[in-house]
């Protein structure tokens, strides 16, 4: 039992002190048994306070420490470090959360909040009194990272990790790498084309010996945990033997082309967002990587016509599974463009209403004249915020990239084709930062900007065979404006991937916007609550390419730091079996998800034993024991019951 405990009650500026009477809390706590020092402090986390606590622990030889401040999710480690620096075991430190769960939650009731703070701290005191000094076990960690998604974020992270000395598996569920970036033509950040950037990066990727790429591959299942994940990968059949395909072999290319030509199956080409069709044998663009076409297994009728032309084709390929061992997983799975439901601004009903991604493909495909469905385009109306900033729909968020992307496309068609009039029906242009210059350039080129708001949106209708966009323009005091246009481009935003399985297998939490959720936007922007699982890029929120790459590189840095020492310190919260009481009934082994409990022999009696390296401290074995012979370190009956007592006392 600890007898010399120091308790510090944090004002947190006025975050706590405005609602909790910290002086009263201090007085009440000072009366408790075993409490030697009680102090209040403006910012417990400030370096000066940390120093003061260290000095106090040393001077008064404190044997327990309680800091009542914010959520332990923010500062548990900060204060455990404080304890450690003063020579106190970090597990003799307990944090009482009197901000998130007291002052903020009950800011409407200062008296109630003060009472609750006292109870919460008493609970923390009860815990610290019974706390044991613990040393965290270390596990070996594999310095290997699995990157899911070979779009720009994934490829960039792969190269960087490889250069920092980490082995990388990178998987892509498509048969080709490059993700969304490869689908874009000119990129607004630098005017390079997506294809160029991906080609450049893929060349770099191929140079690294410590990167293995699997295309057509997804995660089938995982087990294990940080440092040692075991992942089963599912490789779907490409139906063309990749190793048969030679580069710069004109003869071979000819044969492949013949095979493509003979293929009788035509399906919408999703690389071009379905504005064109492709065969069941396909590749996305000229320099697509890997440099080998693929056969769309779902679309292919297996007629076998192609096989006669090309020996590389193998319609009998089956899906394969391989097992890999990795220390961490980095998700860079990207986004799906918002797909408007039929009828939203005439989409799917009016012939010449398309989405921004479709428009971008169209610009890429139309070399000299902008033609859509055999009609030469002389005027374009852009309708912004389609699928973003929805008032009634689910997507409340702004998709961040689309204003700039639409404006950039508009500039691009001015430069590439002659005499096109552009109308931008926007809800406030969000060309933040240097992107503002594009907005300026487009306005100077004569693009017409009309602003609408949530209540008065633009509408698209057909009158006498002509497509008309109507709106009340805020910029001209709400005057009704009408434009007859050849093409309507719906500036669609980003949505989370429709493919949910990867996130579900890895149990990555999702946020209110349904994108993957990081732990903290500012403190831990690429970490998730699942240790060893990182996220980066557009799978966590809409981002443009530069931003996604920055996040990918951040995640690479964090993953490398986690694994490069070859070992990771774990929490020492492990299950412990009271072998005297144990009657070996097997219930605990059945409950344990990690196979961490074994049958062993104790002087002729069969008893259970915990394998420490496997135990993750979840405690699932605790309640199933019929004789109550298992305790979790830090959560023993004595501790739990004394906390329960203390909080109501």
């Amino acid at each position, binding site marked *: 039992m600890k007898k010399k405990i120091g308790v510090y009650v944090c*004002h*947190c*500026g006025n*975050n706590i002190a405005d609602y909790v009477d910290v002086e009263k809390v201090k007085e009440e706590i000072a009366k408790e048994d075993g409490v030697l020092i009680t102090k209040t402090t403006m*910012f417990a*986390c*400030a*370096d000066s306070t*940390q120093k003061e606590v260290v000095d106090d622990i040393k001077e008064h030889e404190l044997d327990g420490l309680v800091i009542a401040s914010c959520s332990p999710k*923010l500062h548990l480690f*900060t204060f455990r*470090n404080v304890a450690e*620096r003063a020579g106190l075991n970090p597990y003799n430190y307990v944090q009482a959360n009197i901000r998130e769960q007291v002052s903020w939650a009950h800011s409407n009731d200062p008296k109630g909040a003060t009472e609750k703070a006292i109870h919460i701290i008493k609970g923390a005191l009860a815990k610290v009194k019974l706390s044991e000094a613990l040393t965290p076990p270390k596990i070996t960690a594999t310095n290997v990272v699995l990157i899911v998604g070979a779009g720009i974020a994934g490829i960039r992270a792969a190269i*960087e990790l490889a*250069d*920092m000395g980490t082995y990388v598996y990178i998987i892509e569920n498509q048969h080709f790498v490059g993700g969304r970036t490869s689908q874009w033509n000119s990129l607004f950040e*630098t005017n*390079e084309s997506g294809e160029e*950037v991906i080609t*450049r*990066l893929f060349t770099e990727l191929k140079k690294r010996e410590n990167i293995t790429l699997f295309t057509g591959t997804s995660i089938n299942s995982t087990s294990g945990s940080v440092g040692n994940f075991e992942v089963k990968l599912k490789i779907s059949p490409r139906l063309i033997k990749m190793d048969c395909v030679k580069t710069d072999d004109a003869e071979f290319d000819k044969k492949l082309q013949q095979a493509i030509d003979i293929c009788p199956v035509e399906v919408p080409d999703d690389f071009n967002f379905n504005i064109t069709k492709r065969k069941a044998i396909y590749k996305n663009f000229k320099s697509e990587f890997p440099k080998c076409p693929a056969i769309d297994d779902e679309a292919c009728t297996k007629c076998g016509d192609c096989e006669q032309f090309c020996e590389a084709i193998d319609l009998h390929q089956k899906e394969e599974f391989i097992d890999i061992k990795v220390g961490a997983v980095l998700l860079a799975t990207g986004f799906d463009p918002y797909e408007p439901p039929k009828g939203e601004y005439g989409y799917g009903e009016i012939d010449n209403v398309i989405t921004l991604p479709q428009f971008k493909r169209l610009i890429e495909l139309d070399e000299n004249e902008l033609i859509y469905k055999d009609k030469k385009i002389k005027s374009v109306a852009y309708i912004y915020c389609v699928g*973003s*900033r929805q008032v009634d729909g689910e997507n*409340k*968020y*702004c998709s961040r990239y689309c204003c700039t992307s639409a404006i950039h496309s508009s500039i691009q068609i001015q430069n590439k084709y002659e005499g096109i009039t552009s109308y931008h029906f926007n809800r*406030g242009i*969000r*060309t*933040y*930062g*240097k992107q*503002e*210059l594009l907005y*300026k350039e487009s306005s100077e080129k004569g693009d017409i900007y009309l602003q609408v708001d949530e209540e008065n949106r633009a509408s698209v209708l057909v009158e006498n065979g002509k497509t008309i966009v109507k709106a009340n323009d*805020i910029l001209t*005091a*709400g005057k009704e404006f009408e434009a007859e246009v050849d093409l309507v481009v719906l500036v669609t935003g980003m949505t989370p991937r429709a493919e949910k399985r990867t996130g579900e297998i890895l149990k990555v939490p999702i946020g*209110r*916007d349904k*994108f993957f959720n990081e732990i903290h*936007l*500012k*403190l831990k*922007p*690429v970490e998730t609550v699942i240790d060893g699982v990182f996220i980066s890029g557009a799978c*966590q*929120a809409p981002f443009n*390419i*530069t*931003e996604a*790459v*920055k*996040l990918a*590189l*951040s995640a690479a*840095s*964090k993953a*490398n*730091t986690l694994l490069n020492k070859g070992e990771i310190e774990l929490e020492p919260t492990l299950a412990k079996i009271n072998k005297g009481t144990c009657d070996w009934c097997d219930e605990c082994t059945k409950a344990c998800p990690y196979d961490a409990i074994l049958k062993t022999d104790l002087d002729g009696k069969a008893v259970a034993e915990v394998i420490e390296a496997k135990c993750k401290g979840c405690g699932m074995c605790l309640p199933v024991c019929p004789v109550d012979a298992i305790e979790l370190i830090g959560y023993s009956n004595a501790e739990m019951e004394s906390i329960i007592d203390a909080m109501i006392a």
Partner: protein
Amino acid sequence: MSQEKNQKQYDVLVIGGGIAGQESGLNLANSGYKVLIVEKDLSIGGKMIHLSKVFPTLDCAACITTPKVSECARNPNITILSNSEVLEIDKKGENEFDASIEKRPRYVIEDACTGCQECEEVCPIVVDDEYQWDLVGRKAVYIPFSIANPRVAAIDIENCILCGACEKVCSADAIDFTQEMEIVNITAKSVIVASGYNLFDPTQIERYGYGKFGNVITSMQMERQLVPTRPYNSVLRPKDGKMPDNIAYVLCTGSRDEVVGNPICSQVCCMYSTKQAQLIMGALPMADVTIYYLHIRAFGKGFEEFYQQAKGMGVEFVKGKIGRIAELENGNLKLRYEDIHEGVVKEAEHDLVVLSVGILANQLPRDLFKNNNLDLDKFSYVKQIDELSNPAKTSIDGVFVAGAASGPMDIPDSISSAGAASSETASYLRRSK
């Protein structure tokens, strides 16, 4: 503080101890690299440590910076030189940068000072407190601010009358007037430029009357009024201490403005103003807040929702262009503006006007490098020469850029940019080893 104070060789020299410098320094230090952070200010923490709460999560800036600040200060692989400035960097070859650093005297022995503030009490001088953006005074010997790191006193020698009172009273014998400016020469294998940004000076826009009208303040001055360690007891007008009840924000002050030479958007003002408006409504429940804007750039994760929340709380957003601000006899301000929704010129009276000042490039990196050219963009930000695939890469191999040194950026963007810089630096160091 690092034990290896006199070390002369580092893997990485980080210029700037703000959030970007700290984040990249910490990442690299945690991977085992030796890092030197040079901070020109008396404390590390940059701009962020002075902010109140941060958008869109409304957690307090101090709660996020102080742990990072103390982690930096404690990390055995990090050495910090505060109150110091890099004068010149000479690239001698791959992995070899010679830097000379000016270490200015504090006139206080850092290790001896306990931060007790007894010296402040006896100092007879009161001058503008730059850490409170001149809203209140400070002494000539002073601790910069309560959560400064290091939290030790310094003497502002320009404003000192050399009375010696501080030295007499200091029980720790920490005052030392014999200190002189030192030049520290070090070598580093790589450099991260994380020198941040400057705020736009609104005296350049005369028609807003900043500096002339006491109740026209900058957003940074409002920010200080909203922190726990604020200069006044409440949000008050600096001219007469009146509690304002009708506050106006003028967005795009010094941004998107060709006339002042800054045509780009500052990326943060819309959101920090929206945040301040929410905080003001908490601090002064009776006050009305009007935000005059051109476009609201609520683009980041959770920003749009935050903007809608502010509207829901009753913050008034007026799409309008401010023409001129005039001061009335009672200290109130009259704003002439073009109401874009209605297409007419209007006037409105407010009792406090906050200018949402934009951000500008820090000029420091411009002439730092000898014999090498550090390319800048046309707004004097450090140029990212391969923005899409190597966002931290600059025109000098081995020199990387982090945070707002490469352009306007909010905190999450600065942190991810710093993450990228640390990662690119680490692989550079490994590649060229």
